[in-house]
């Protein structure tokens, strides 16, 4: 009875403590050991398990930072955590693949560090030179973030040469080389992944990229409609209702996720809450 009362008191106090404002710790970005070599020594025979721990920390760091609304949003620990993870377990393929995507993602959705993504993937390729997925991922970084299509095509071709590479890898390399920067080539690349990827997260990510490309197409069509409206009426549209009234549109246009497009200063934009943001550069992805 006394034990139950004490336990209930402890739980009650904990609930009360939770309501108090947290103390300022300033230790959110703390990583005690940053040296992969030192950590490998300290791990004894638990290197794989420690790699898992650092992987979970990397995901939490990325997720928490991405969700945070503070002004001091920093992904500073992401690369060190991924570096530790992959040093402790050099075959932790998810850490290379997801990590590269996280690192390359532009702010505020990520740190916008494609160079770190390339470094991480090159580290993985050094450990597993015949891993076509890592070669393909490196090609993506060059394709998507650097818009360096010849380099991307070279990595796709390298991936296609690996024994376990899927059949669509070689055509992808050829299309990238011939039509790099072309929206259709990009669509073909993401569609191949969406249809063939085993990992659910990557598959959904490929679908999101396809939706981004659809949004770019839709925004181009809307811009053409805005231009036609201006030519016909001699004044720019300020609301979608102007285009609807002139029978250019049947209703407020929606993006591929169902959110209404915004009309800002005569131009089309995605809703600020859209998960499709940031869009790839439409100037280079024709």
């Amino acid at each position, binding site marked *: 009875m006394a034990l139950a009362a004490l336990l209930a008191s402890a739980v009650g106090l904990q609930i009360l403590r939770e309501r108090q404002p947290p103390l300022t710790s300033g230790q959110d970005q703390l990583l005690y050991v940053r040296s992969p070599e030192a950590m490998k020594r300290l791990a004894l*025979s638990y290197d*794989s*398990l420690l790699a898992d721990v650092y992987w979970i920390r990397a995901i939490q760091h990325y997720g928490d930072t991405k969700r945070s609304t503070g002004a001091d949003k920093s992904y500073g620990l992401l690369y060190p955590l991924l570096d530790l993870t992959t040093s402790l*377990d050099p075959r932790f393929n998810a850490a290379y693949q997801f990590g590269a995507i996280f690192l390359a993602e532009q702010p505020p959705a990520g740190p916008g560090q494609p160079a770190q993504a390339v470094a991480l993937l090159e580290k993985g390729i050094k450990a597993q030179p015949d891993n076509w997925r890592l070669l393909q991922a490196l090609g993506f970084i060059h394709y998507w973030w650097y818009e360096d299509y010849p380099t991307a095509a070279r990595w796709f071709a390298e991936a296609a040469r690996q024994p376990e590479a899927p059949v669509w890898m070689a055509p992808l390399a050829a299309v990238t080389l011939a039509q790099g920067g072309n929206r259709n080539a990009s669509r073909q690349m993401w569609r191949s992944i969406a249809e063939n990827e085993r990992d659910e997260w990557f598959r959904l990510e490929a679908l999101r990229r396809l939706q981004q490309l659809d949004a770019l197409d839709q925004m181009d069509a809307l811009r053409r409609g805005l231009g036609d409206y201006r030519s016909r009426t001699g004044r720019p549209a300020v609301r979608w209702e102007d285009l609807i009234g002139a029978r250019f549109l049947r209703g407020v246009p929606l993006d591929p996720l169902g959110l209404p497009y915004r009309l800002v200063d005569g131009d089309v934009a995605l809703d600020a809450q859209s998960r499709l943001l940031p869009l790839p550069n439409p100037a280079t992805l024709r």
Partner: protein
Amino acid sequence: MPAVARVAVNVFRESVRDKVLYNLVAFAVLLMAASYLIGQLTAGQDVKIIKDLGLAAIATFGLLIAIFIGIGLVWKEVERRSIYSILSKPVSRAQFVVGKYLGLVLTLSVNVIVMSAAWYLVLAYMATTVGEATAATATDPAMLKAVALIFVELMLVTALALFFSTFSSPFLSAGLTMGLWVAGHFNEDLRNFQSVVDSTAAAWLARGLYYLLPNFAAFDVKYQVVHGLPVPASYLASTALYGAVYITLLLVASVAVFSRRDFK
């Protein structure tokens, strides 16, 4: 029943009485809780992490049992003075030491077998919740190679703890056993010591320690089995043989030390 077997069975019964096997419950709860929580946290890496966690937990639980029960195997009998009544029976000192060792090995084997079975059950359940490619390797029987070498490693740790317990206090025995276990994981560094020091003597000393100290790192193939990398039968056999020779050496040394002790 031979004297060695009687002593061994007695050690096993005592460990059951001391609730040592309760760690199996802790292991099962740890794995089941982790399999649920990790699924929410790890972006599709839950099966790999449960493989890592299971193998690490089997090794750690076993290591704690091997050290903390091993160091008390002989010391406790001497401290309680029950050694007098045991040795007054038709049990030689060698039979007593070997029986104690085999009893703890029996306890460890029950632990390792039950933990491995629970681990495979959790993995089999998880295989039903993941994609086809991951499910195909979730319960790969080749992972038992790592379990087998963990068991040999635990037998070696037990032999070390028993050896120290024949002549020193439990605290010192635990420290020495744990120290050797840690040093045994730095074996590769000892072998390559000449690359970080200029002194030839220091390099030779390190090389000597490399051959002399038990190489515990050799028993660790967890990484290989989790990633489906090959662990040749020749590697398993040579490592197991290395462990067996070292264990025999330690048991002979334990018997020799214990035989010289004066209990009068």
